[in-house]
């Protein structure tokens, strides 16, 4: 036996067997209405440190979440990693017991779309590579990155990982969803330091359906370029600046405030939007935001959500107007609309976005924003490359943010890295303060977006 044993596929879950077991257990417990989400995966990953293996990891994981409805129509839930018959029985009994505490005001049901046709996703299943092959690839990538500039001394955060996974949704009315997937990821985060100056760091990430499809060279190139671009830095004076967000940074910002589009948050009273916000002007008239989990750029897309509802493209903002919310079955019922394929699986079902498409509402005039924007053509532009600490610096229910960022100040057509700074503002003002877009939209792991110009944001620096 050698290292290639790691390439073994996950122990397969068989939906029909699982359905049969649950049906039988449910009958024993007197549970007539149930559903289940199951997942299993096999992961392998490697990390390196200056030419040596740092950590090699393998994991086989399995989990199920069972929901059971009682005779009052209340739902309970239990999750477990124990997929043995005893584990399933305990999970179903636990869910049944928990249903006593179900919320009569907001009880989820089966999605009316849990048996609707699913979109066909182009997701090639790749054979996993041996872990020592992954290790060699990552060692070479690290060496290449270290060789790009004498100041790049280490790549302290790095990893090459691959996953084979399977997920299932079943319910007692015969819904049966199943999806298999293989994915791989590479991240390289370099640290560079020059004599007498502070260390700087930056990096890049790539996703693909298999390790052999990863754009390793592109990841090295981007990580090197971004790190080197931050070596020559200077402090920035505190003040208000026109900011140009990179696609990644703007997608992060919109994602952090996705409660604006979240029907669950609206119903809970913690969203900036309200029930009657649909149809209102949320942003400048040239902004369009869609959630499109099915976009080919969304590596690892799922064709159905936690309740079995098909994933589909959904317009959230068109022409600056708020058009739709993201829904689970329960929130959709409360709003009198169909579920949108954005649900988790729970007693209180969470709702969340998949993958954003952000850009101009049209190609000309009022639908496109300011034309021919070029960040290098104006002085005093702050170009925000990446935002940090969104978990700490975003107040989603207040709309405010104050976030550290990596970026550049543009003067005389030249971009110089900013030493350390935060950008602060209010998302509603940002969306209504967009100047326009620059360049072509870029596909990122979180969505697709061009460079986004925003007027008058507060920057705090050290100068």
């Amino acid at each position: 036996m050698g290292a290639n044993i790691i390439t073994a596929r996950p122990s397969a879950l068989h939906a029909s067997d699982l359905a049969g077991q649950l049906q039988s257990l449910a009958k024993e417990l007197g549970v007539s209405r149930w559903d289940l989400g199951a997942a299993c995966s096999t992961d392998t990953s490697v990390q390196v440190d200056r030419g040596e293996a740092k950590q090699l990891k393998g994991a086989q994981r399995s989990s199920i979440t069972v929901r059971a409805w009682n005779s009052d129509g209340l739902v309970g839930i239990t999750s477990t990693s124990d997929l043995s018959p005893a584990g399933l029985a305990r999970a179903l009994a636990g869910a049944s017991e928990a249903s006593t505490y179900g919320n009569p005001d907001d009880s989820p049901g089966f999605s009316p779309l849990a048996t609707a046709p699913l979109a066909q996703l182009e997701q090639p299943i790749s054979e996993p590579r041996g872990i020592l092959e992954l290790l060699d690839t990552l060692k070479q990538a690290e060496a290449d990155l270290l060789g790009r500039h004498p100041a790049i001394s280490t790549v302290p955060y790095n990893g090459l990982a691959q996953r084979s996974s399977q997920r299932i949704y079943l319910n007692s009315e015969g819904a049966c969803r199943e999806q298999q997937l293989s994915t791989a990821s590479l991240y390289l985060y370099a640290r560079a330091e020059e004599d007498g100056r502070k260390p700087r760091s930056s990096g890049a990430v790539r996703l693909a359906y298999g390790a052999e499809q990863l754009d390793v060279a592109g990841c090295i190139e981007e990580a090197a370029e971004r790190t080197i671009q931050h070596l020559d830095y200077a402090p920035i004076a505190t003040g208000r600046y026109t900011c140009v967000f990179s696609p990644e940074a703007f997608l992060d910002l919109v994602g952090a405030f996705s409660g604006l589009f979240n029907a669950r948050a609206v119903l809970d009273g913690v969203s900036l939007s309200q029930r009657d916000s649909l149809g209102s002007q949320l942003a400048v008239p040239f902004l369009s935001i869609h959630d499109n989990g099915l976009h080919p750029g969304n590596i690892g897309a799922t064709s159905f959500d936690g309740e079995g509802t098909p994933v589909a493209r959904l317009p959230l903002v068109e022409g600056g107007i708020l058009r739709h919310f993201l829904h689970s079955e329960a929130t959709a019922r409360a709003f009198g609309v169909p579920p949108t394929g954005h649900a988790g699986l729970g007693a209180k079902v969470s709702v969340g976005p998949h993958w954003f498409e952000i850009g101009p509402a049209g190609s000309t005039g009022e639908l496109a924003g300011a034309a021919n924007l070029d960040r290098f053509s104006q002085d005093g532009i702050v170009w925000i490359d990446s935002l940090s600490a969104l978990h700490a610096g975003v107040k989603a229910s207040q709309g405010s943010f104050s976030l550290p960022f990596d970026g550049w100040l543009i003067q005389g057509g030249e971009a110089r890295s900013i030493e350390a700074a935060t950008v602060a503002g209010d998302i509603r003002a940002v969306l209504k303060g967009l100047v326009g877009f620059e360049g072509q939209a870029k596909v990122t792991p979180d969505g697709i977006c061009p460079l986004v110009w925003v007027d008058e944001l507060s920057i705090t620096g050290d100068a």
Partner: protein
Amino acid sequence: MLATPTTSLTGDSLDQRWRDRLETVLAAGAAAGASLVEVFIESTDHIGLLAEQERITNVSPAFGRGVGLRVFLGDKDGFVSTNDLSEAGLLQALDQALGMLGLTRANFGAHGFAGLAALRDHGASKENWLRNCPGLDESTARLLEATALLNRHGDHLQARRGSYARDWQEVLVAASDGTFARDIRLHQSVGINALAADGDHRASLGRRYGSSGRPDDLRQWDAEASAIDLCSSARSMLYADYVEAGNYPVVLANRFGGVIFHEACGHLLETTQVERGTTPFADKVGDTIAHEAVTAVDEGLSDGAFGSLSMDDEGMEPQRTVLIENGVLQRFISDRAGELRTGHARTGSGRRQSHNFAAASRMRNTFIAAGPHTPEQLIGSVDRGLYCKSMGGGSVGPTGQFNFAVEEGYLIEDGQLTKPVKGATLIGEAKEVMPRISMCANDLELAAGFCGSVSGSIFVTVGQPHIKVDTITVGGR
């Protein structure tokens, strides 16, 4: 067929009955040439509850079992986790981990494994913990009481939430150096949150309390005092102006103010950072890295504290580790791999979220020790600055740059607290800020929190007395 883990040999409890199975695995690993083989088995039982307004809106039980198996060859290691606890499952995991290091389980030939030591059973006195915790009726009633108290004491509250989590974990650690130890852990946390809104004014605030090893904790929780405290803060912050950006002297309140030390310095004193070359303090033991007013400690011993342990996740009993004494760096927080790779002796700090993670050097209860001053003296020493009563989360980057959000802040003008301000973020670098902590008050208190890092999210305590930082960059509007 389902993947069906088989554990029938051992029954439900993780205990002495696992010895033979574990010795088989460890002997096989040692015979294959591994320097060390370590097995971490866990059984977990979790419940999460949420109350919103006058309703229980979520009851989420979860349970599970799993094993993490780690093989060392010199200072290199391979790690495999699985939910399959059968002997075949453990041996398959062993084969995979050995394979990562170029080793194979060829035979049961000569090896240096002398068998497991007598079981050190830290869990024996804790068998009743789970059943002594409040049941669902009692727990849900406490949360509804809390949201009702928020309603009673608050103004303009648009959303009120109470949450409770109970995490029970039984662990068994066995290693080819003879380590054989068992423990039972119980962590409970309860939180309250409120969103106050009045026209365009909004303020969202929260409080969280946590303990370890105290089954009675939810019963003992003073929900009314917590609600009054939160509502008072919400009232202050609802109409607060945004803070003006700039560099100010800052006084950080005690308890969760300790997140500044945790993020800015504590992470940089973990041996994982030494291994990566991402700490500026790697070669600074014996050097002055902070103001002489600063003594900082990491320990796992405080009774009932969220980060306390009877043993770490590598079977070692925790210690009280003085990290910085009067400004001078004393030692690092270290685990087994950290000791192998950096030479810093283990401190009982090998921790992980679950069997899915290899243990790493992680903080436990980490705090700045009390000083000689009163909080009023600290505030009185500032002409114009910021008082941070309550902190949000924070993080530290790979170059030591940290940031954290101020949830509740007040201006200090002429030595007095004046207007509430919101939207502040404190940013800086550990190396630069530590020498600027010039005064420590005499009111040390700890606060429970969660720390996410290389080995997952773990229970920790942060803490400090009121401290004064002479100047720090405050991000704002």
